């Protein structure tokens, strides 16, 4: 199925938390729309993250068996949201889907996808330490790259570099 058919099917089965489809578009001078490149994605409510993924995995017409990627993004310093982005792949039907959820920076929290895709464990740990996102229900939410006592979330746009770490200067 192409993206349009997948989206229509998600609407037809009333997938929980589905908000809208966002497709790449050309810039429009009259409405001052800057346009968007990239691939189409569906936007969902963060609270229904796990239920939505369950539908994607278990629906016989979708069967997304594979979580290709789970990552996050901080779009801009003045933006109030962080993004959590998920790439799904169905080996059986040979189609893909990109899923996106907006989390407010002040309380970035989302249910953990590990209950549906166990492959999400390390991805969520990395998102957690780099962006400060809490994945509720993660079985092992330790840091994976940074030291355990690291202060701050390096991939956030407003991150301030440390002056020293354990007595070693960073300048």
């Amino acid at each position: 199925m192409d993206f349009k058919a997948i989206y229509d099917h998600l609407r037809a089965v009333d997938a929980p938390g589905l908000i809208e489809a966002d497709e790449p578009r050309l810039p429009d001078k009259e409405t001052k729309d800057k346009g968007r490149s990239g691939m189409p994605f569906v936007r969902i409510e963060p609270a229904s993250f796990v239920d939505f993924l369950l539908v994607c995995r278990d629906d016989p017409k979708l069967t997304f068996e594979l979580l290709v990627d789970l990552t996050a993004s901080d779009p801009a310093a003045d933006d109030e949201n962080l993004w959590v982005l998920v790439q799904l792949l169905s080996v059986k039907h040979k189609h893909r889907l990109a899923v996106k959820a907006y989390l407010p920076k002040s309380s970035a929290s989302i249910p953990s996808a590990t209950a549906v895709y166990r492959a999400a464990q390390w991805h969520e740990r990395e998102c957690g330490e780099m962006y400060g996102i809490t994945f509720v229900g993660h079985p092992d939410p330790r840091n994976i790259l940074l030291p355990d006592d690291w202060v701050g979330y390096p991939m956030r746009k407003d991150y301030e570099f440390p002056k020293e770490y354990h007595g070693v200067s960073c300048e």
Partner: protein
Amino acid sequence: MALLEEAFEENVLTTKVDWLLNWARLNSIWPMTFGLACCAIEMMAVGAAHHDIDRFGAGAFRATPRQADLMIVAGTVNFKMGERVKRLYDQMSSPKYVIAMGACATGGGPYYKYGYTVMKGVDRIIPVDVYIAGCPPRPEALLEGLMKLQDKIRRTPVIRKPAFTA
């Protein structure tokens, strides 16, 4: 020397203790098996047949710091790794030497400005004897660095205190 040379039987050599100990040391600098990033690939090339670090007696890469004389810091050191590097250095027995190989180990390299967890040079935690420039350095450069270290050992007095400290 000339007075002593006729004084013993054949097959007896006379020399200075400093010279003998330094000769033994500088021709058996055993490095530790220890690579952190892309510089380690060049270090492996130095160990292989084409460049052959064994010509200098430094080809016995030891898998434990207790048996090693030389730590070649080949790659990017971040803060989390830096504490392990320091512990490994502390576990090596004296005399011990450190080569900072490449731009990262020397001063942070390409991560100097925006590498939030990269240590800006391994000399902030352990003393470095020889710095090698390059990103990564050619295998010949590592051999040159090893020869510089041998020169340094050759100049070191072993059984008497140095007349001056630089």
